[in-house]
Structure formats: C-alpha cells, structure tokens
C-alpha cells in the first residue's frame, strides 16, 4: 500500500477550506495546494491504485501510466500558474471553482473506470460554468447558461454511451474503446467530442471563453479541451474519423480569427485550431503522432495560457479587449507586450519556441502516412495561426494605431505568472529532450534539423510578409465592431424559434381549451340546467314537430312550457331524474 492520496483529492478537498481563509493566508494556501498535490502525485508509482468496489463494479481513482502522468504534470503546473495569476481575486466562488475544476481534470486523467471518469467529467462542467458566471455581466450569464446546457447534453450522451458500453462489455474499465462497439462507442466518442470542440459542436468555446472572468479564462483554456484530448488519446487512438475532424478544426477557425474583433475570441478560435492538430495526431495513432498530440497539448496549455494571460492583463488594466479600442500599449505595458510576443512566437512554432518542437511531430506523422491533403491543410493552418494569433494579437493590442490608453503595467503577480510561463515556453523550445522524456512513447525525434528550421522560418517570414504587404496596401480587413455568426446561431436563434413555436402551439391550445371547456361548455350546461325539465320538454317538442311537420303552434307551446318552468309549477321530477342519471354516469366512470 502506498502512502499517498488519490491525485484529485488534495485540490478538491483543499478548495473546500478556501472560503474559511482570507487575504495572504488564502493566497498562500491556493499556491501551496497545487505544489502539495504535485508532490503527492510523485509519490504514486506507476500502476493501478485506489480501487473501490461500487455496486459490483471496480472504481479506480489512480490509474497511473505514462499517458496520464504527463497530463497530470502539466495540469499541476498550469493550476499553480493560474492560481498565481489570480492571486488578487478575492471571490470565494471563483477561488473554489478554479481549484475544484483543476482537481476534476486530474480526476478524469487518473480515472481507471468510466463511472469515476463521468463523475469528474460533470464536475468539470459545473465548476467551469461558475468561472464564466462569476464575470457577472449579462453576456457572461447568457454564455454561462449556454455553456452549461451544451455540456450537460454532451454529458448525457457520454453517460448513455457508458451505460450501453458497460452492458456490452461487462466491465467499467476505461481503456481503448475504438469505434467498433456500435452505438455505445459512438455515443462516448461524441460525448468526448463535445468537450473537444469538434466542428459544429464547438461554439460553446468561442461563445463562453471570451465572456468568462479574466482569470477564469486561463483555467478554462487549459483543462476542458485537454482532458478531452487525453480521453480521446486513451480510448480512440488511430480512429480515422479523428483525422478528418482534426483537419477541419485546424482549418476553419483561422478564417473566423482573421475577422474577429474581440481579441480573447480570436484566441478562442486559435485554441480550436491548435486542438485540431492534436486530434489529427490521435487519429493517425502512430507512436510519433500520439507523442506529437500529447506534446502539443502540453505546450498549448502553456502558450495559450500565456496569450490569454497577456490579454487578461490588458483587459484588467484598460477594461477593453476589442481590437478597435486597443493599440499602442507597448509604451506603458512593455513586459506584458514582451510576454505576449513570446506566446505568439511559441504558438506560431518559431524555432527555439515551444510550438516548434511539437507541432512538427504531427505534421511529420501525417507525411509518413502519405496523407497529402491533411498535410497541406495542416501546413495552411500553421501559416494561418501565425497570421492571426502570432501577428494579429500582439500587433493590434500593443502596436497598430495609438489608442491613447496609457494603463499601468500589469500587477506583479500577473507579471510573475506570465514570466514563468514565457520562460517555460522558451525552455521547452530550446531543450525539448526534457519534454520528450515525459511522452507516452520513447522517441528519438529531432526537431532541430537544418531543413526543418529553414522551412519553418521561411513559412513564417513569408506569412509575415503577406500580413505586412496586405496591411500597408489597405487590403487587410479593418477591425469592425461586429459579431460573427457561428454554429451557435442554430441554438441561439433556433432556441428562440422553438420558444416562439411552442408559445404559438401550446398557448394556442391552452387558449382554445379555455374557450371551449372553461367558458362555452359550462355556460351551455348552466343554461340547460337552469330549467332542466322545461328545456328537455322543449327540445323533445321541437324534434317531434320536425318529425311530424306539425309546427303551427310550436312557438305558442314553447312559451307555455317556459312560463310553467319559470313559475316553478313544472314537476321537479324531471330535474331529479337528470341529476340521478348524471350521478349514475359519474359512478360508472369512477368506480368501474
């Protein structure tokens, strides 16, 4: 028996103590937790630990192997950096959800069975929603609810798949699933795909991340999509559908990113673009490709986090994040600007920066598999990502036209968080063997060949040349205050259509029922039963008169019946008979 706790426990249990702490003690506690949790993780040897029997199934909280370990390491690292960046936030809700969110990601990573995986999966959704809602703007409220609904739908899909899968296989163990298991494996596949932001399932990401709190977005950008990448790498490596999904993910967001005005939304689109590379890698499924996907996930968490942190610092200091409102900030925020450029160089895969040593692994795996089309799209996406994330973000925020804003430099703890991340990006880019040593498969991949360095540098410089010439010639699309429709139009407008339709149908039905059953029929009955005997006799007389044709004195006779009825000289017996009949019918209806 080992002397450690399950990997997810320290962050989740430690988060519950946060509301009791204040000020510096809370800050120290929040920084200490990821460190403690990391030390705890190091104490757990490779293997299967913390297994509990639950309703006849084996629930495992500590399935530790090379694949889960590398995700465990990077999740701890980014949890520490995000907490450092968010040190000024005195908001219990955000502090607690951030920590539990990170803990839930660890829970998914080290889950050895589908039930605990699902529980942590849902915990991710709930805590992430609070990180979005904590911004407390109407936009964040809307985006948060949409985020929640989409992920609950995805979670239900996953749950249905898990139940079917467990029925089929007879075991809840989480391992390779593949797409051959029929409906069960397909449902799990789609459930993972929602969190992975596959095309058409993606708009929750670009909708909500730019609306979340400044610090919440750093957490969000790291965990949800990367746990999905982990789950896919574990359960669906070598699934061909992933190659095509990933190719689409790498390609389409860059077009949106070019015309998007909100810089955090630009980063959200480029997040999907980067995850696309990972999905392609998992789809190819060779050792090199999966290594590439995992290494790229590791690097992306750092450089995308760094870029979101720099934009968060800009938003924190200026209150603005639209490209149309920003510009010229390099003068008063030089450090943030420098870190942003490091992040931009890393995501664009400049030699000596982290993207360079991981993105090319996926590209090379595609080339070895002779996937020409996929390779070309990925190369296009590589040029495109430099264009929108590498140049557009730093250029429009820190250079471009002078916005006249002269904000203070970012607070010290934010600078420290960004500085550590930037240093890591350069370190991994310069000494990739430390990252390669952690990868799931042993590798002797060499990123620094003369051919690779020259090709990549040429690609990037000529992309930059295109940007420069397009900008100088005025062809580059001007930033416009606007929003761009995406697949979320379907449920944002579709939701309203469904609302209007159900309003028409159900409220119409309701109104019709009200008219017929509440107003008209009781009115008729009331009039009839006011003089039941008289009415009955009148109707009888009318029928008889129609049948025999003796309608001559019908009106006169009806007047006589009416008078008799009004003067109450009409025999009571008729009414009583009707009442008894009515009661008899009711008794038959209810008691038979």
């Amino acid at each position, binding site marked *: 028996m080992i002397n450690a706790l399950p990997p997810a426990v320290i962050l989740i249990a430690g988060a519950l103590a946060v509301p009791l702490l204040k000020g510096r003690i809370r800050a120290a506690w929040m920084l200490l937790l990821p460190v403690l949790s990391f030390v705890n993780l190091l104490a757990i040897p490779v293997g299967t630990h913390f297994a509990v029997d639950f309703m006849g199934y084996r629930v495992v909280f500590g399935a530790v192997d090379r694949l889960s370990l590398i995700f465990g390491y990077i999740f701890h690292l980014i949890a520490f950096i995000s907490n450092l960046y968010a040190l000024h936030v005195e908001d219990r809700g955000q502090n607690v959800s951030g920590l539990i969110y990170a803990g839930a990601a660890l829970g998914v990573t080290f889950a050895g069975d589908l039930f605990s995986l699902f529980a942590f999966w849902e915990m991710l959704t709930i805590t992430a929603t609070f990180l979005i809602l904590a911004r407390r703007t109407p936009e964040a409220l*809307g985006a948060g609810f949409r985020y929640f609904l989409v992920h609950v739908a995805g979670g239900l899909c996953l749950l249905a798949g898990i139940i079917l899968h467990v029925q089929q296989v007879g075991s809840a163990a989480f391992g390779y699933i593949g797409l051959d298991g029929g409906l069960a494996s397909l449902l799990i596949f789609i459930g993972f795909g929602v969190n992975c932001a596959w095309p058409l399932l993606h708009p929750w990401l670009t909708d909500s991340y730019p609306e979340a709190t400044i610090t919440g977005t750093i957490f969000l950008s790291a965990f949800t999509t990367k746990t999905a990448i982990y789950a896919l790498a574990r359960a669906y490596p070598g699934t061909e559908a992933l190659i095509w999904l990933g190719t689409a993910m790498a390609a389409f967001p*860059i*077009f*949106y990113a*070019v*015309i998007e005005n909100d810089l955090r939304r630009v980063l959200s689109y480029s997040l999907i673009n980067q995850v696309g590379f990972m999905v392609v890698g998992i789809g190819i499924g060779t050792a090199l490709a999966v290594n590439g996907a995992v290494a790229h996930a590791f690097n992306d968490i750092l450089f995308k986090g760094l870029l979101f942190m720099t934009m968060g610092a800009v938003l*924190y*200091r*200026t*209150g*603005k994040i639209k490209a149309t409102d920003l510009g010229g900030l*390099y003068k008063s925020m030089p450090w943030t600007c420098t870190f942003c450029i490091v992040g931009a160089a890393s995501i664009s895969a400049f030699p000596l920066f982290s993207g360079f040593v991981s993105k090319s692994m996926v590209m*090379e795996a595609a*080339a*070895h598999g002779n996937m*020409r089309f996929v*390779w070309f799209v990925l*190369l*296009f996406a590589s*040029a*495109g990502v430099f*264009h929108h994330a590498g140049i557009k973000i730093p250029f429009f925020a820190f*250079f471009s036209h*002078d*916005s*006249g*804003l*002269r*904000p203070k430099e970012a607070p010290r703890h934010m600078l420290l968080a960004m500085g550590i991340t930037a240093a890591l990006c350069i370190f991994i880019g310069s000494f990739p063997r430390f990252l390669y040593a952690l990868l799931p498969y042993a590798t002797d991949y060499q990123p620094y*060949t*003369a*051919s690779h360095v*020259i*090709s*990549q*540098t*040429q*690609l*990037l*410089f*000529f*992309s*930059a*040349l*295109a*940007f*420069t010439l*397009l900008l100088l010639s005025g*062809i*580059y*699309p001007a930033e*416009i*205050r*606007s*929003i*761009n*429709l*995406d697949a979320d139009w379907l449920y*944002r*407008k579709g939701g309203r259509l469904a609302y209007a339709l159900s309003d028409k149908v159900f409220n119409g039905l309701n109104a019709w029922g009200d008219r017929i059953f509440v107003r008209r029929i009781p009115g008729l009955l009331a009039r009839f039963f006011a003089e039941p005997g008289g009415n009955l006799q009148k109707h009888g007389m009318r029928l008889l008169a129609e049948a025999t044709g003796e309608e001559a004195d019908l009106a006169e006779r009806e007047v006589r019946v009416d008078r008799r009825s009004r003067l109450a000289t009409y025999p009571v017996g008729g009414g009583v008979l009707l009442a008894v009949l009515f009661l008899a019918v009711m008794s038959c209806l209810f008691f038979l």
Partner: protein
Amino acid sequence: MKKVQRPEVSEKDASHLVDIDEELGMFDHPRNVKRVLYGFYTCVVLLLAVDLVYHRHAIFAWESYFGFYAVFGFVACVVLVLVAKYVLRPLVMRKEDYYD
C-alpha cells in the same frame, strides 16, 4: 508649434491621462518603423536565398522545390485574408446587438 490634441481617455482603470509632453515611443518615429520594415525585407530575401545554396531534405518531393515554403506561406496568408474578408465576412458579420 502645432497644437497637439490630447487624446480622450475616459477609462477609470487607466492610471493617468496621456501626457502631451511624454517621450515619444519607439514606433512613433516613422524613421524607426521604416528601419524595422527594411530589416524585415532583408531577412525575407536572405531566407529565400538560402534555398539557392542549401538543398532541404524532405519527405514529400515538392518540399525541396525552390522556395516552396516561402511561396506557400505567402499565398496561404493572402488567400486566407481574401477569403475571410470577401467571402466569410459578408456571410456571417452582424451588428453587435444581433442576439439581443
């Protein structure tokens, strides 16, 4: 001396207003911007020149053609921008209050 217009800064978070006597930033001098640009153009030409002397090793045959990556990078970005501007924008761009 020409009167310098003070840019409007209304944000509460901005720590201080722009000082009209402040030192000009590095890129406020057009001369510096030009220098950067010329330096950049020189790099671009030199990088292309590398292809003349160094034969790159590659997996696909076309990768080792002269200037393949340079041309691809340039064309890809031009196509990207043109498609985004003239195809995607007219299709999807709406006013900021579209969903309100």
